Every structure is written in C-alpha cells, then in structure tokens.
C-alpha cells in the first residue's frame, strides 16, 4: 500500500509551488533552488501575497505611490521569473493586510 502511494507520487511529473510574501523574495531567498529545479525540468510556480506596493526603500518624498510602485515591482518580478525559469507567476495583491 505504502509503496503504491509513494510510487504514484514519483510517477507524477514534479511541480514546485512557492508561496512568498513579496516580489524579490524569490530572488533574495532561494532563487538558486528555483533555477536549479526549473533546469532539471520541474515545473515551478510562484505566488506572492503582495505586489510590492509598499516596497519603497528610498526617501519618502520620492515614493511614487502604491500603484506605480506595484507596477515597477511586478515588472521586476516578471523579469526575475524569466531568468529563474518559472512557468507562472501570480501576484495576489493582498497589500491592505501587509
């Protein structure tokens, strides 16, 4: 019984889903792992809770605002996803709770 169940898992094509808080966590934290698995043929996916709306590190007066910043962070994330070989990226936009 155990062997059958284990066998079934290994028979499936491997998929890796990463659920992270912010755009850039995928590169800072474990980008190497995602790239390695993607290179091995594992289908890799990413969900981020926020769109990086509040990810401004510079002077407050230069902050472009949540919407503009989210667009910048999303563009950066999609570029990173291409480098890391991610198949799909989904940004949840849960910033109101972040």
């Amino acid at each position, binding site marked *: 019984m155990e062997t059958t169940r284990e066998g079934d898992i290994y028979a499936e094509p491997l998929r890796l889903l990463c659920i992270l808080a912010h755009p850039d966590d995928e590169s*800072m*934290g474990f980008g*190497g792992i995602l790239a*390695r698995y993607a290179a091995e043929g594992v289908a890799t996916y990413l969900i981020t809770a926020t769109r990086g709306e509040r990810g401004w590190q510079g002077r407050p007066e230069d902050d472009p605002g949540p919407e503009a910043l989210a667009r910048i962070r999303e563009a950066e994330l999609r570029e990173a996803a291409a480098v890391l070989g991610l198949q799909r990226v989904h940004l949840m936009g849960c910033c109101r709770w972040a």
Partner: protein
Amino acid sequence: MGLSYREALLLLPPLLLLTALWTALSAYPPERVSATGASGIVSRAILRRRIFLALVAISLLGVAGEALVDLWAVIYLRGLGAEALASSAAFALFSGAMVAGRLANSTLIVRWGAAAAIRCTAAAAASAALLLALGGVLPSVVAFALLALGVAGVLPTALSAARELLADEGEAAVNGIVATTYLGFVVGPPTIGWLAELCGLQPALLIFLAVIAAVMYGLSREL
C-alpha cells in the same frame, strides 16, 4: 537516495514539539522593552565602539548562515543525489528548524544570556561542519537543520544585546545592525558560490561554517 521526503518531514514534528516544551518553561520578553537614544541615527562615535562592531559582525554572519541554508542546502543535497521531492521536504525541515531556533533562542537568552546563545551558534556551526565533512545525504540534512537551529536566533540576540550594552545609543545601534543585515543576505550566498567555483561546494560550505564558528566563538567574549 538515502532519504525519502516522508522521512525528512517526519523529523519536523518532534523538533517543533521539543521547542514548544522548551519555550513553555520561560516567560518572554523578560522585561518591558523601551526605546532609548535620541535620534536613532548611526553616528561616527558608535561606529568606533568595539561592541557595536562585534554585534554587526555577529548579525552579518548569522544572517549569512540563514541565507546559506535557504539557498545552498537544497542544491548541495541534490548534488549528493538526494531526490528532488526529498530535498524539497528537507527545505521545509530547515525552515521549521529556523522557527524552532528563533523560539528556543529567547529561552536561552533569558536563562544563560546573549554570550551563551552566540556560543551555541558557534557550536552548531562547528557540528554542522563536521557532519557535512562526513558526506552522505542524512548527515548533511542533519547538518543543515542544526545550522538553521543555531543561526536563526542570532539577529534577535544581537539586537537585544545592542539595546542592553549600548543603552545610551541603543536605537542607533539597532538601526545600524538591521541596515547591515541585508548585506549578509545579498553577499553571503554569492560568496559561497564564488568559493565553490574555486574549490567545490563542499569545501566552500566547510570554510564558511568554520568562519561562522570561529568568529562567533571569538566575539561571544565581547558580550
């Protein structure tokens, strides 16, 4: 090879249960934490304080150790021939070990102080190096879990020690430590990669762990 994903995940519940028992025995935080210092701006004067530099080095290496586990552990295990599924489960184990390490660290500080906590980190790094030197998937999984346990509490330890030991400039010290912390995340993993290209991943990890163990042990005397 050597370890199934199920075995890797089975190591996690006992670890978290032990941590819950360990932390249930002490109240934390030990006292009310209040803001100190005037501006919180890092001054030139604080940059010359030996204890501040020691705490920066400790937190930098601690965070670099966390980044090592996050980024290199799974890649190393895959290189040893561990299954992709088992390696991913091991990653969950390392993340759980970091949670356990951070929780357990508070009890360690309350009972034995910051210096003892940092010496435990040094011991964990040294033990992890010995286990990695043995080779094989299982000793390596235990090594990374041990390292994750050991380094997870370093940053909170350094921050609370800064508050205590640099009471007059506690706020600025905390700001300075947090600012340099990101350097550990950004510089640590590529440094290991660069070393790995020169001498191979296992020697690179061993060198890095030896540095963490030696520096942490040496600087614990400053606390």
